[in-house]
Structure formats: C-alpha cells, structure tokens
C-alpha cells in the first residue's frame, strides 16, 4: 500500500472522527514509525505521524493543535467508547486492528477500487 495512488504522493492519515476518509493533502514527510507518507498537518515535531503518536499515547507530540487533540481523542474514543467508525477511505493495513464499518458487498465496485486492493 505504499504505492502512490494515481501517481500522486498523498498523505496516508485519515481525516474524520465518526467517519474516516482520506486526507487530500500532499505528503511531505515519511513517518519514522509506520513509514507511510504524511502531510504537514499530520506529521508531528517528533517526525512521526499523528496516528502513530496517538497509538503510542505520546501526548506531548499531540497536544498543541486541533488536529493533535482530535486524533488523540479519536484513538481513545474508538477504544474506551467502543465506537466503530464508518470507513470511506482507501484500504490501508494500518487500520486492520480497528473495528471499522464499511459496505461489504463483493459484487459492488462502483468506485473502481479503494478497498481490498492491498
């Protein structure tokens, strides 16, 4: 899943709290933990992406702005609040340990991929 979609080098983080979708920003850095390509909004000072920072509970890296606060809260809410987000993004094994919800119909591919192409 590291191959850029359509030749574009886009950020691999997901936007959203109740539902998840792809971040539309161009990537400028590589997360030193997950090795995914990340945009300026989703990379932290520590050189890791906000999603890895939230997973590792490195709150210091996240506290400063709205995005950091939201991603940290999101990570906690999926666990403590037992919430499964709706997934509208490109498939990414990074999310395989999250219990998300998506339309599961093998006959339907009206959007030309995105899921199961990894």
């Amino acid at each position: 899943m590291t191959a850029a979609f359509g030749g574009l080098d886009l950020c691999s983080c997901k936007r959203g709290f109740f539902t998840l979708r792809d971040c539309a920003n161009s990537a400028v850095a590589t997360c030193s933990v997950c090795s995914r390509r990340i945009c300026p909004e989703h990379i932290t000072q520590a050189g890791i992406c906000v999603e890895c920072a939230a997973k590792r509970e490195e709150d210091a890296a996240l506290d400063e702005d709205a995005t950091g606060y939201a991603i940290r809260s999101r990570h906690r809410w999926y666990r403590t609040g037992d919430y499964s987000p709706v997934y509208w993004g490109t498939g990414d094994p990074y999310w395989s340990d999250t219990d998300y919800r998506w339309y599961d119909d093998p006959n339907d591919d009206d959007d030309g991929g995105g899921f199961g192409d990894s």
Partner: protein
Amino acid sequence: MANTVKQAFNALTPQQQEIVRTRRFSGARTPDEWIALLGPVAEYDRHADQVRQGGGGFFARRYARKNDVPNGLRTFAFPLLAILREDIEPGAPLELWVDLSGPLQSGKATRSTPPYKKPPYRKIVDTFYDDIWLQGRTRFADGSRLQFAVIDHVRSTFKEKKNPRGKIKRKTKNKKKTELTVTLTASNRMYAKTAGGRAAPKVKLKPADKHTKVTLGGTLVAPNMEAVPQLESLIELISGAYERVAPARRKKL
C-alpha cells in the same frame, strides 16, 4: 503584583473581549475560523481560572472573578470544535448559538408554581428555567447533516419560614439537569438504517425518501449549578446516531 488577567484581557481583540463580557455569541464560520476566534478566549479563561484559584494578586483575582468565562466554553464548546472539524465538509460552515450567561434570568423562566405551603415553610414557589446554552448545526463530508443542543433545566425553589422567635427566613435552592440532544440526518445515497446501536434514553428513527433522521437524547443530573457535562456525553450521542445507519455503498470520500 502585576494584574496579568487584565493584561491578558486587553490582549484580546474587541470581538473576543465582547464574548468575555456578554458570554454570548453566534454565527456561521468554518471550524478553523471558530478556533481562531475562540482559542484566545479559552486561553484567557484558563489563565483567569488559575489566578482565581489563588495564583495571583488581589486585583488580578478580583478582575478574574468579574471577567469570568463560564467553563462551558473551555471544557465543552471549544474542544468540540476540534472534534467536529474532522468530519465537517471542507469549507462548510458550522452554525453556532452559544449563551453562557446563565439560566437564572426572567427571560429563560418557563413557569412558576402558585405559592404553596409545606411546614415548616409558610410559602414555597418553584420556578422552572430552560437554558439552551449551546446549539449547533453543520454538514459533514459524508453528506450527513448534524444538529445538536445542550439545554440546562433548572428548578429554583424559593422557601420562606418564620422561626420560633418570629424572624422571617428566606432561602433559594437550585437544582440543575442538563439535556443533550443530537439529530443526524444521513443521506440515503450513503447510508441505510440498521438495527442495533448503543442505548440512549431517547431514540427516534425517522426514515424518509432521501434520508434517515436519527435523534438521540438524554438528561444528566448536574452535581451543582456550575457543572458542565463531559464532552464525551455528546460524542456518545453522535456515535449512537451513526450506529443506527450503515454504509450503503462502496465509495471513497
């Protein structure tokens, strides 16, 4: 000792000072615009609260008491912006109506009981107040629309009695409950209603041709008049609403 609270207040823009003074604001802005407007107000309040709790000199403490921003902004409305910002359609406005001026105002009174007696009290009057202190409406990137409201319901009981020495004693006791309500209008192009979803005291599901309207609500007893519900209470209701619809197509947003 420098009055750091006054300095912090003076550093705010006239519009932000107006919010601190009136404790009211409304409008339609993007989440980033709201954060830019309210971030410094929340920061001012954080500093004023520290000073009020004994972190500053006498004048700073007095200034902080007089120019307080109720905690509903710093602990609820402001962090909510960052959460909603994630799902709001890029460029779409978040309409907000915020009134933190407090429930005990004649304009917010809904009714009073006629005076009644209950020994040892010779006169009791209950007055009920409804205070919608936070209301919002916006559009999400998945095409859903979200509406929410936080409403304080207060019962204020005035009691009067005569003590054995003939002296009249009066007191007023207030009890508060906070109602939270959320309506998610999910487009049928994206979602279909589904069974299940976490329980909530009030659940309404209204399917229609173009959308499914899910309303969830609940009421929390407040431990005191200043108490503000946890932000998680509202997040819980929005989550419960989303759990009542399931994605109906495969699509990348």
